[in-house]
């Protein structure tokens, strides 16, 4: 059931828009279902028509105009130039073909490390999380990665319960020490703002906050100190109305956004 268009942008839509802006034309991106998929299609329909979208299930460069409800779903196949296997798509990471990947997080620390394994002690956890899936592969191997996560104090923590997926590990130089080929997380996009990692320390810093979001709110929802907070904090750019409409058209049934 489509709803009439509303001009107030939602947090999901802001995240999708901010993520779509990180696509460069020609990027080969490994895309999961959910917000990254909408962001990828929005980018491909606008400023990055030559981006190649690879789905983990092996679908290459799909051009679906409506959203599939899962990575293995067949609607995605129509318009694809190649269908192959989970094995093949993950092999592209090893080959270095994938230069952009997206990650989610149950917990994230100041270095962009991610926990998706347990809350509490590993052996006797309070909550057992679904696990790494392919995130570790993406985080380790893709040239650039972007983390999309809801901004909540229980998720933005000083110390992870478990390090499932490496960001910058202990800071500058750590990825090199462990021999991880990818460059590490480029940005973190939340419902409150956009964040980057300081070049010297590799700790998270504020790049911009979304409209109507206060610094106090962000600090309240973050369990660690930012490395850098601009004196005058930029407001995240807003999508033009046509682009907002494009994003909404991609998911008319609100399977992924505004659900």
């Amino acid at each position, binding site marked *: 059931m489509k709803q009439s268009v509303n001009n107030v942008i939602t947090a999901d839509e802001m995240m999708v828009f901010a993520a779509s802006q990180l696509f460069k034309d020609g990027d080969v991106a490994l895309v999961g279902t959910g917000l990254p998929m909408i962001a990828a299609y929005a980018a491909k329909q606008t400023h990055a028509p030559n981006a190649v979208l690879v789905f983990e*299930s092996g679908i290459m460069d799909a051009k679906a105009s409506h959203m599939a409800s899962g990575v293995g779903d*067949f609607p995605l196949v129509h318009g694809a130039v190649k269908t192959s*296997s*989970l094995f093949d798509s993950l092999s592209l990471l090893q080959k270095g073909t994938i230069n952009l990947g997206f990650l989610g997080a149950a917990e994230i620390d100041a270095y962009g490390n991610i926990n998706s394994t347990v809350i509490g002690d590993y*052996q006797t956890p309070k909550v057992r999380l679904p696990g*790494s899936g392919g995130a570790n592969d993406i985080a380790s191997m893709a040239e650039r990665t972007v983390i999309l996560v809801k901004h909540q104090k229980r998720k933005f923590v000083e110390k992870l319960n478990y390090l499932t997926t490496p960001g910058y590990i202990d800071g500058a130089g750590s990825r090199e020490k462990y021999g991880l080929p990818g460059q590490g997380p480029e940005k973190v996009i939340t419902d409150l703002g956009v964040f980057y990692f300081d070049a010297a320390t590799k700790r998270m810093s504020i790049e911009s906050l979304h409209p109507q979001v206060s610094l106090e709110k962000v600090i309240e929802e973050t369990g660690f100190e930012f490395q850098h907070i601009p004196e005058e904090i930029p407001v995240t750019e807003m999508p033009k109305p046509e682009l907002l409409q494009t994003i909404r058209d991609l998911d008319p049934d609100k399977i992924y956004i505004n659900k």
Partner: protein
Amino acid sequence: MKTKNFLLKEAVFPIKNGGSIAIGGTALRRHPMAALHEIIRQKKRDLVLFGTINAVDIDLLIAAGCVKEIYSSAVQFDNEISAYALEKAFSEGNIIFNQQPKKIITEQFRAGASSIDFIPLRKSEIMEGNKYIQKLVSPFNGEEYIALKSFQPDVAIIHAHKADQYGNVQFDANRSLEDDIDIFIAESAKHTIVTVEQIVSEAAIEDDPANTVLPASLVDAVVEIPYGAHPFSCDERYEKDSSHLEYYKKISKEPAELNKYIQDYILGSSSWYDYLNKIGMARLLSLSSRQEVSGNA
């Protein structure tokens, strides 16, 4: 040629308590659910399970008390919620869950399928504490790699579209998605069981040999089980049963209700057809429809 067409009961019978089983299917597609129900009915115990991305398939085996240890990238309802029986058993210390990245798992099945004991991979992991990963130095350039121990389970079970009675197995023409992993899974085991939507004639297989994914020489048992992946999808033959999956997710939060589910749907079903009757024809057929089914149609 010897027929390998068995009843489900017979096909599953060789699985031993304490044995290792690789389970086909990925995420919400093509897990061999009928065979897993039969394993639960036969009260197999202390199984070691291998899978890629798992869900209700493994959760049910855990809830029914069949499982000792798991190797999988995830056992989940969706990207954010772990399966509840898994979570409970894990937190109570009743199972060992060896969680590994997907890429590593696919390589381990591939290595097992090639009957090699390990495979090198470019270093992509912080690998402390993972007993299936070791360091390995290249004998050519002296660089450090990681060695992955292959998966070579006792038994593999996958669900496919069709096979002849001799065990030549085919996927439908749209076979290319994650299916390769199922082939690796099937080939990794010493004993391979394939459940299929349809048993077809050998002539039908010979009409289209390029779509054969497993030759009879690599298959030990085939069983015809329509809707054998329910509530998961089987590519374009039927979609996943979202409402049943939601139902499972809801009731599995309460151990007592989950136990009742196992009683009602599995132990209390004399066969897979009995289970399908409980799901109901209207629901099953709606899963193959491209149209939305309205109301109580």
